[in-house]
């Protein structure tokens, strides 16, 4: 995904130097805000290549794209009034509607610029996570928002901001390098950067000297925690079949997180916050995904599974670790077992069949269908004698889930929903009777659907509609239900705009969307993905849906989304990704190789409705051995190409995703 991952540091410096000369001129022109905004964090990162500042990951995050147009960046006050603020997480009791209503939506239109995005104000959120050892540190040092807005000079005097993102920052370390690689565009002068380095070095020294006994002990404990965390991280991101390009980038930051290199600053900061968070995170962490080229595990999975695994022949080497596609060939064998799978509830079974047959696709729809099936299963559930509801139901749901996974790998959103449901079951008070517990769970599921999906969509479309102006040409790719709602909503509001629906083979989902839009009276243009660079000239906004958004801001979405975003970026067209916050995931993913989903490989060699296009059919078996068909379902769009993410908590820069994950994940598990 990364345009040029192997660029080295010296090269970078050289480029920076080159661009320095043009800086003044460009400022005068007050050029594209996005370019500027990207420039600022880039250079900061350059400074962080020094070995003893390992935990400074939050910075790329704290850089809010567009918040710093040159005049603004001089005044810290202007930035604290950022247009989109994430409200403090103290109001846990607030329901979603109230909370989102509190998010101020920027009403002003910034012509020729990006949709407004602001930096969040994390000082409050940091306080919320505060713990005794940390309270030593002054609040103003932690207030990262202020730092980022102040730029270099102010920030450098506080070396302790490092852990202001206790949970999210950790993951981000892996994301740091690729972003910095893209810093070719950075425009800040070199001297500034060296200054930063100097200052950071000086500020870290005295701190090291005055460690007390308590501090040392704290340090030790934090190191232990960090070790455990790095192990968990290694587990999570371990990708045997993964891309070679991603590996070298991943390794160094992980090592840095380890205890031996970790500086005292980072360590002492992490204590307390980290340990509790870490513990919880370990619980929350999804188990490492199955790698299908792993012999021993594959064998075990095969024995357990309801479906037969198709053989791995004729599958692209690089993607052998992904679960093979099961449609078509597996349907009969599953069908014939219809009556044998006693323990599967019919509703769950039906949903599974629909996944398998491809009758139901789309993240939201799959999630809703799954939750509704679970709801039905819970309604029909009765606790067997000598078992408790909590435990038995959890294992039952687990059985359903593994069945659904066999039908089709889960999407991130579904994973989050399942976690929610399981935590709800686990938290059921023991005093509740069975029927009460069941009704509680059913209403919980209803609430999840209503608040996290339906209401979230409503909020998103209100937000996004503010970004549609008369005369706009909006481009969308594939068929995203949120984007469709946005377009229809804006149309209802009476805005005059045109829509370009870009589609791609073999799903041709865009046609369905197109039909619904045209029926509603929107004026549309339909084109295929390969014509994207031609249509992009006229487009003023790109609206994209997402299957999931990762902590590093990477958008995981239907294959082709990345190219659309990249082209849009090249044409300086703002890219708005619309995604409900329940789809956010704390995982960090840099490429679309480690985790992806394989589609039906035969689908790409066929043209629907054209039986005569069958050039691959009459190959002999021996020739077919040389042929590998690859039909990937998803790709990962780097956060660079994304201007703003429209979510139910407001419009945020991609760098703010971990904040949402950190601050709201707990709360939605608690609901």
């Amino acid at each position: 995904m990364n345009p040029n991952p192997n660029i080295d540091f010296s090269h970078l410096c050289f480029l920076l130097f080159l661009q320095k000369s043009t800086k003044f001129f460009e400022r005068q022109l007050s050029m594209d805000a996005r370019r500027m905004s990207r420039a600022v964090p880039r250079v900061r990162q350059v400074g962080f290549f020094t070995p003893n500042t390992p935990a400074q990951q939050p910075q790329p995050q704290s850089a809010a794209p567009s918040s710093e147009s040159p005049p603004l960046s001089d005044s810290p006050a202007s930035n604290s009034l950022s247009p989109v603020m994430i409200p403090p997480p103290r109001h846990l009791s607030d329901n979603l509607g109230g909370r989102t209503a509190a998010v101020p939506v920027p009403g002003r239109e910034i012509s020729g610029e990006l949709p407004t995005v602001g930096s969040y104000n994390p000082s409050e959120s940091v306080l919320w996570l505060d713990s005794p050892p940390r309270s030593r540190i002054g609040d103003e040092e932690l207030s990262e928002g202020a730092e980022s807005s102040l730029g270099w000079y102010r920030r450098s005097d506080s070396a302790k901001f490092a852990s202001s993102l206790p949970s999210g920052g950790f993951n981000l370390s892996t994301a740091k390098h690729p972003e910095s690689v893209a810093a070719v565009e950075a425009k800040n002068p070199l001297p500034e950067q060296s200054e930063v380095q100097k200052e950071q070095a000086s500020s870290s020294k005295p701190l090291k000297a005055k460690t007390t006994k308590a501090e040392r002990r704290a340090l030790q404990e934090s190191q232990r925690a960090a070790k455990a965390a790095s192990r968990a991280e290694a587990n999570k991101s371990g990708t045997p079949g993964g891309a070679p390009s991603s590996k070298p980038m991943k390794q160094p930051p992980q090592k840095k997180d380890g205890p031996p290199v970790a500086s005292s600053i980072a360590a002492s900061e992490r204590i307390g916050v980290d340990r509790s968070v870490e513990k919880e995170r370990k619980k929350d962490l999804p188990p490492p995904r199955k790698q299908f080229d792993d012999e021993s595990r594959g064998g075990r999975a095969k024995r357990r599974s309801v479906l037969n695994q198709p053989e791995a022949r004729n599958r692209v080497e690089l993607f052998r670790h992904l679960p093979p596609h099961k449609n078509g060939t597996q349907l009969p064998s599953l069908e014939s077992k219809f009556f044998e799978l006693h323990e599967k509830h019919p509703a769950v079974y039906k949903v599974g069949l629909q996944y398998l047959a491809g009758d139901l696709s789309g993240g939201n729809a799959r999630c809703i269908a799954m939750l509704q099936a679970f709801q039905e299963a819970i309604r029909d559930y009765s606790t067997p004698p000598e078992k408790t509801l909590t435990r038995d139901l959890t294992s039952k749901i687990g059985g359903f889930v593994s069945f659904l996974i066999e039908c089709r790998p889960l999407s991130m959103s579904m994973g989050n929903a399942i976690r929610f449901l399981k935590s709800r079951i686990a938290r059921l008070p023991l005093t509740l009777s069975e029927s009460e517990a069941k009704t509680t769970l059913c209403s919980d599921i209803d609430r999840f659907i209503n608040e996290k999906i339906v209401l979230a969509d409503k909020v998103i479309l209100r937000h996004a509609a503010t970004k549609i102006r008369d005369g706009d040409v909006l481009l969308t790719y594939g068929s995203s239900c949120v984007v469709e709602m946005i377009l229809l909503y804006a149309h209802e509001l009476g805005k005059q705009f045109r829509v370009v629906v870009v589609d791609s083979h073999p799903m041709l989902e865009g046609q369905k969307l197109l039909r619904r839009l045209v029926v509603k009276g929107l004026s549309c243009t339909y084109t295929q993905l390969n014509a994207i660079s031609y249509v992009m000239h006229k487009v003023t906004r790109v609206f994209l849906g997402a299957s999931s958004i990762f902590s590093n801001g990477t958008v995981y979405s239907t294959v082709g989304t990345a190219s659309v975003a990249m082209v849009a970026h090249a044409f300086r067209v703002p890219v708005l990704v619309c995604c409900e916050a329940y789809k956010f995931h704390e995982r960090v993913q840099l490429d679309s190789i480690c985790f992806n989903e394989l589609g039906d490989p035969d689908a790409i060699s066929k043209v629907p409705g054209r039986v005569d296009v069958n050039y691959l059919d009459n190959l002999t078996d021996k020739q077919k051995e040389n042929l590998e068909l690859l039909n990937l379902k998803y790709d990962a769009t780097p956060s660079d190409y994304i201007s703003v993410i429209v979510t139910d908590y407001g419009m945020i820069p991609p760098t703010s995703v971990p904040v949402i994950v950190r601050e709201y994940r707990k709360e939605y598990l608690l609901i």
Partner: protein
Amino acid sequence: MDFQVVVLAGGNSKSLTPLVSKDVPKPLLPVANHPVLYYVLHQLEESNLKDLIVVVEGEDAGLLVGAWISGTFVDRLHVEIAAVPEDIGTAGALRAISHYLTAKDILVVSGDLVSDVSPGAVAATHRRHDAVVTATLCCVPISGSSESGSSGGKDKTKKPGRYNIIGLDPRKQFLLHIATEIEKDTRLQKHLLHAVGQMEIRSDLMDAHMYAFKRSVLQEVLDRKDTFQSLKQDVVPYLVRSQLKSEAVLSGIRQAEEDGNEKVSFPNNQVMVSQILANASTPSFHELYSMDPDGSAQTRKTHKCCAYIASSSSYCVRLNSIQAFMDINRDVTGEADHLLSDNVIGPSPKLGTKTTVGPHCMLGEGSEMGDKCQVKRSVIGRHCRIGSHVKVVNSVVMNHVTIGDGCIIQGSVICSNVQLQERVVLKDCQVGAGFVVTAGSEYKGESLARKEK
């Protein structure tokens, strides 16, 4: 899985005389030494369906079938036998037991089906599409018809009449047209064609008479249309015909569903959720048709009629004629021997010297054969006594048959307790139970049965 299984076992079938009689009702007609009903029950048992309702025509037949089932599937199956009056047709039989039906969906299987099509697959297709009716279609066995060409001209002329004209949508999922009896012309509905766009008409498919019905709809149709006699000829074609304008058929149910939705506290959200789900799923032509031109509300009521097409490798034949009986006997001992769980040759047949038993044969236990006999592609039942110099080719010999020396039997069915005296030559004959063929007589293409007293 909320399915109820009804096996329509039938009673006395006119097309199978003289093979079936009062003592041997159709369900108990032995096919390769097992009653034909055994194959269906065995198949259902394999699919883990153990609660069955077996509907038999006639009280006497009901008693016989009940006795046999309780003897064979002692504690493996839980079977309820329902005896219904004769000649009320399949629809009538279902109407008669309608009050037993409680599950959401009903699987109706004909008792004379010999197949390895999994009932689960039919049920799964039914559920996946939320269909009103799912019919199982299978390819007409090509090998059977070609081979049977040798065995008689009268069946040959009959054959084309058994084909069905079946219309399918391009994705072969939905049933658009079904005509079981060939008339001179058949009518297609214009609006249906218009809605689907493309229809595939096939005559090489056979209705296997294994249906999954939505119970509520089935009961309503049966109540409303009390002239309907047969599932195959009346009920299923009616449902298929009316799938785009399902008149009152579904109104009651839809209403109930909508009422159910109203109760939920967020009606508005519910609409949105269903909208999301509807948009995400691949719409069938039913949904497209039922929408208004502007795509908003569903105004027209539709229901789905699905087809499950068994793969061509699976075996599926109905025993509804003597020819089919012969074919099944041959296939079960031959190519489709996986239908039988036990061994083909009984434990202790006594064979005389120089007697040869060719492949695809079955010998029941306790049968004795004399010297220099030849048996090819035939089934011989239990406790038969066959003399020497007997040739049995392409034939079925049931239990307790005595065959004298020097008989030649080709392409014939010989029922139980028949006595063939010496040097009888039979070709393409059916000999009813208890008949005695006098010595030296020759018959060709005849049906011999004892006169009813």
